[in-house]
């Protein structure tokens, strides 16, 4: 069965078709925390079923638990990815990503199982090149025995959220490291680009402005922040709102600038917003307001948030993995149809002309 894989700066998520009418998501935080090894510590970690690896006298706690431990021990977590791509500053980045991908993706049921992997588009505001990242992630999945294909994060959002609009619209994924944007018309990307700013950028700015640790800011942002509250002067929440607004303005300004370079068709373009950094309460209202003020050169019909916010109150970060899964299932179906047609063609009786 085909799978979709979203390799994000903060989370690595895989999606596959579940039992009946359902999708099954596997998720792991793309982070780890280094600790000193010891028999007692290892026993505790084993009994608590915490994911870790050991190398010499050091232990790397993986995933969500790394965040919990970092808050408890007040230690900085290490991130294998930075600004949407494999971090060049982290020497353990590839082994850690490999472990997490193996964990969430699992082994393929059959050799050559299709997997679509979301990758960022080239950023417009940075010299970052995404080719190495994309090819390395693809190679890691290929090594597990999958038949891999890459898909732009923005296009994955369009596939996931804009099916009702014939896959025409703007898909925006506000991730931790990057914001990916794709303008698509009938499932074909017209413009695809990324911005090297996302949730991490907000955390860094707020952290440097307020002096609170980065991990603490991330925790507050994810659990105790909404746009429609009144903030105390000097509070972390106030700074978060300020930088969220700055990020939204920056995204829209770049979108406007990119749209002015192309001639999009005369159609209605709904906007779909997804990604972990868009889950703050009130984000959509602010985004909608800024979009209406921006006077974009295309006709925006509606601003649509990730489906799971409405239906299942789950994390909107699943949107990209879902979009990748849709692409993978479509390819799988197309290949199946092709195989059947080929088979029928071969089985057709050959007419022999009678003499």
């Amino acid at each position: 069965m085909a799978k979709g894989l979203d390799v994000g700066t903060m989370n690595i998520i895989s999606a596959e078709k579940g039992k009946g009418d359902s999708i099954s998501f596997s998720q792991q935080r793309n982070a780890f925390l280094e600790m000193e090894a010891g028999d007692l510590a290892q026993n505790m970690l084993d009994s608590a079923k915490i994911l870790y690896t050991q190398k010499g006298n050091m232990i790397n706690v993986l995933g969500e638990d790394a965040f919990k431990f970092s808050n408890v021990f007040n230690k900085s977590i290490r991130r294998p990815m930075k600004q949407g791509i494999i971090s060049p500053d982290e020497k353990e980045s590839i082994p850690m990503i490999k472990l997490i991908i193996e964990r969430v993706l699992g082994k393929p049921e059959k050799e050559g199982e299709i997997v679509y992997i979301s990758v960022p588009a080239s950023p417009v505001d940075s010299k970052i090149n995404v080719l190495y990242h994309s090819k390395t992630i693809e190679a890691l999945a290929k090594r597990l025995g999958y038949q891999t294909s890459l898909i732009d994060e923005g296009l994955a959002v369009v596939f996931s959220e804009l099916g009702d609009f014939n896959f025409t619209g703007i898909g925006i994924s506000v991730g931790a490291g990057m914001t990916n944007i794709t303008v698509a018309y009938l499932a074909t990307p017209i413009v695809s680009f990324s911005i090297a700013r996302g949730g991490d950028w907000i955390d860094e700015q707020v952290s440097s402005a307020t002096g609170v640790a980065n991990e603490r800011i991330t925790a507050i942002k994810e659990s105790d922040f909404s746009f429609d509250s009144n903030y105390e002067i000097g509070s972390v929440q106030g700074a978060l709102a300020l930088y969220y607004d700055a990020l939204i303005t920056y995204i829209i300004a770049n979108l406007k600038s990119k749209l002015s370079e192309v001639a999009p068709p005369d159609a209605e373009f709904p906007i779909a917003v997804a990604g972990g950094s868009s889950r703050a309460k009130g984000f959509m209202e602010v985004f909608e307001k800024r979009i209406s003020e921006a006077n974009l050169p295309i006709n925006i019909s509606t601003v649509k948030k990730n489906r799971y916010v409405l239906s299942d109150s789950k994390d909107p970060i699943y949107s990209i993995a879902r979009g990748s899964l849709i692409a993978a299932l479509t390819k799988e179906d197309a290949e199946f149809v092709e195989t059947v047609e080929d088979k029928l063609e071969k089985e057709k009786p050959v007419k022999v002309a009678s003499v």
Partner: protein
Amino acid sequence: MLPDDWTAGVPNTQRYKYLGNSVSPPFVQVIVERKILSQSCINSVIDRIVYSYAKTIYYIKYLKDVMESKIRYYFGSMVFLSGLVLSIGAIGFAIMVHLNRTSDPSEIITTYGFLGTGLSFTLLGINLMISQRRPYGLYSNLVMIFGFLSSICGVVFFATIYSNNWVYPNVSYVAFVYASGICLLSGNVFGNAVVKLIEERSRLLLETDTINQYSIEDIEKEVEKTLNESLSNDSGFSAFSLDMKEDISSFVLGKALKESPQNKIEVKDSIREVECLQNTISGKIKVTDSGIDLTSKMLSATMKQSVLEQNKSLSDKLKTKFNSIRR
């Protein structure tokens, strides 16, 4: 592969520069094997490398030549100046003694002896300064030596016979020997000057960058173009496949990583977008885009018009042909 000691014979500073600027053959091999550049660009890169190598070799040779020519110029200018001093001295002496046909033979011999020798030395000096290297430099040097010896012989012959035996045919012999020597030296100077002029022109042609078809920017553009061409038609991503070796990880996996299964979240979802996406990609959906409709209509009208015009011109042609046959 570049030969050993290919920079030998030049100062160390220059050698460091050449070695630093040289391109290693394996690097060129990688460029060619990986097809990073198009064939024309590879040719240009190789041209550039060969050209730089040739230029460096030429420069090393040029430096060696400079060293040799310095010595030649030193001797040449010294001889030239000696000749000039002798000649001027001879003229000065002639003025001083009021030289005329009835003057003392010793004064005449001294004056013309010095003047003749001076002229020979002057021409020899010029010859030395612009003399050529082998192979034709050898003949040039032989002519120079022969000419100089001949002219000096003429002077010596003159000095020997002037007092007692300055009669026909001795005078003719002296004049012939000296004149032939001077002619050889002058002719050699002219010949060398012409050769020098031709060489200078060739050097200027070599120094002018004739192999300048691709600049660095052009090569960068070529690399970008080639990378773009390597994008897969299906996905728009690079078709290059990164293979990975079986890694020998030094990590020891924890118990939970090895034993406990990955938590999964099941969400009710029929994923009907798969069917929609298939329909959209295969073009089975109705598009309501006035812009596209209008463009399609305009295109269709233009194509019909063009077909009509084509048919019209064809019938016109047939009519013309028919009329001509009838006539």
